[in-house]
């Protein structure tokens, strides 16, 4: 993983845990309007970040995988194989 990929992945992981955390909070506080608005706002930002990452470094989920000569999904190291996850 080059420096740029590592940085982008770190940003993605940071955004992801923010959303996971907020999602868990919303499970037990489903009427919190402020949290609902935050979730919507940051989820949109997250989707943009994911698209940018996937364009450069390949699919995050199998739904985004394709390939012409080779199945892209298995082209790169798996998260447990690369330093930095």
């Amino acid at each position, binding site marked *: 993983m080059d420096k740029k990929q590592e940085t982008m992945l770190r940003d993605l992981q940071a955004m992801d*845990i923010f959303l*996971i955390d907020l999602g*868990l909070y919303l499970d*037990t506080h489903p009427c919190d309007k402020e949290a609902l608005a935050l979730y919507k706002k940051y989820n949109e930002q997250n989707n943009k970040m994911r698209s940018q990452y996937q364009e450069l470094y390949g699919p995050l989920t199998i739904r985004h995988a394709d390939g012409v000569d080779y199945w892209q999904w298995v082209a790169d190291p798996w998260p447990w194989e690369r330093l930095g*996850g």
Partner: protein
Amino acid sequence: MWIYERKLQYPIKIKNPDPRMAKVIITQFGGPDGELAASLRYLCQRYCMPRKEVSGILNDIGTEELAHLEMVGTLVKQLVAGVPPEELAKHGLGGYYADHGYSLFPVDGNGVPFTAAYFASKGDPVADLVEDMAAEQKARAVYENLIDLADDPDVIDPLRWLREREVVHFQRFGEALRMITE
């Protein structure tokens, strides 16, 4: 259903292999308070809850625990990467190597294999949620013990992060219990 996401939940970057730490950290893979037990506990319990919100928190925390299982597996894998078998044996992993090579297998720190007896699913929401709160505290305590045993910041950092998640989960299960009892 689930869709696999091709990234770890938090970065792990072990530069110095350390079989001594691999041997103890594996308990969070397959030990009594480990991530496999946690995930199965919540994913089993979620079928029988009186409120959708509570099934939701069990579903979502159960899912997150699978991501933690992957992180702990990655820690173990990177901690033994390139370590020769005789070196593993010196750190108490000879028996493990004989049975599993460099593969991951759910055991505790003493090599005892995983058992579903590590968790309960009672069909009683109060009993289940109180168990879940205790489970999160026990997992937090194990991470703190592991941090005490570690000296490499590359190992301590993800362990601290995982410990933090147990604190959040405990909080959410407390709220879920209140939703049911109030």
